[in-house]
């Protein structure tokens, strides 16, 4: 399998997963357990994505400029900053820290 096949195959597959969600009969959602899981999946996966994106370096863990960026994002969110500001503040913090401490 080449990367082209992987890109197109997984791309179309991801689209079909989206379509399935919109097309499944409403009664599937009427089950409380499905409803709870549907609510919790984004919570768990977004939290894991934050953790992995910020603290994973390949297969090891590291605390570096990304963690400072995340801390800055938390402050921005506590101050009720809009999405764009949160993202830019995090990038600026990490970028400036790396400028000051190369390799961090």
């Amino acid at each position, binding site marked *: 399998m080449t990367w082209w096949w992987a890109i197109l195959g997984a791309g179309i597959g991801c689209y079909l997963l989206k379509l399935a969600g919109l097309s499944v009969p409403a009664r599937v*959602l009427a089950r409380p357990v499905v409803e709870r899981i549907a609510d919790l999946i984004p919570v768990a996966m977004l939290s894991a994505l934050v953790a992995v994106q910020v603290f994973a370096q390949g297969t090891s863990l590291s605390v570096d400029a990304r963690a400072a960026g995340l801390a800055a994002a938390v402050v921005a969110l506590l101050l009720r900053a809009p999405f764009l500001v949160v993202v830019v503040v*995090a990038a600026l913090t990490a970028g400036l820290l790396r400028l000051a401490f190369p390799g961090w």
Partner: protein
Amino acid sequence: MPDLDETTAHRGIARDGLGVGLATGLYGVSFGAVSVAAGLSVLQTCALSLVMFTGASQFAMVGVVAAGGPPLSGALTALMLGTRNTFYGLKLAPLLQFRGWRRPVAAHLVIDESTAMSVTRDSTATARVGFLSTGLAVFTLWNLFTLGGAIAGDRIGDPRTYGLDAAVGAAFLALLWPRLADGRNRVVAACAAAVALGLVPLTTAGVPVLAAGGVALLAGVLTRDAADPTELPGR
């Protein structure tokens, strides 16, 4: 509600959608640059944003490319991450009420951002405004900025210099943030992060996040209370 207020409300929602589109476009630059740095061509990078169009899956696949992993595991990781869009769709379907040709078109726009911006609305009309304004803004800008980032990728050097990797984490956190108002969500989020980080040294890229989905399944099956009290609060 008078029509004037309704129009004003719709404009406000659409403006928020555009704001999210801009922010997401910014880390589209990050995706383009990271993808080319990982070894994909500009064309492959743009194909990912156009066809797959779900950021976490795209970043996950590019992570496997960068790690020199096989294309099949890259595809599987992207697909498994993409399953959360199915759950988003399940929540959105009764709210958005798209029928006929609109449904397969709208389906492509079912992503984190469009879900977050529509799932809290109390009517189909406002939900659609939130969903479409965010989805279309993100789709347009994400693809444009992906192209820009991919082309610039070779010239700007390491995207980490600009903190673009930190921007991705911050964007995920901003999407998660409103859901943390609820106590049970906070517990699940903390467990999911702990499980994911614990698995990072033990598994290949993508698996830790998939395992976190297992935490949600477990919590959903084990908790017994009635309907979840916390949908996403308004942004």
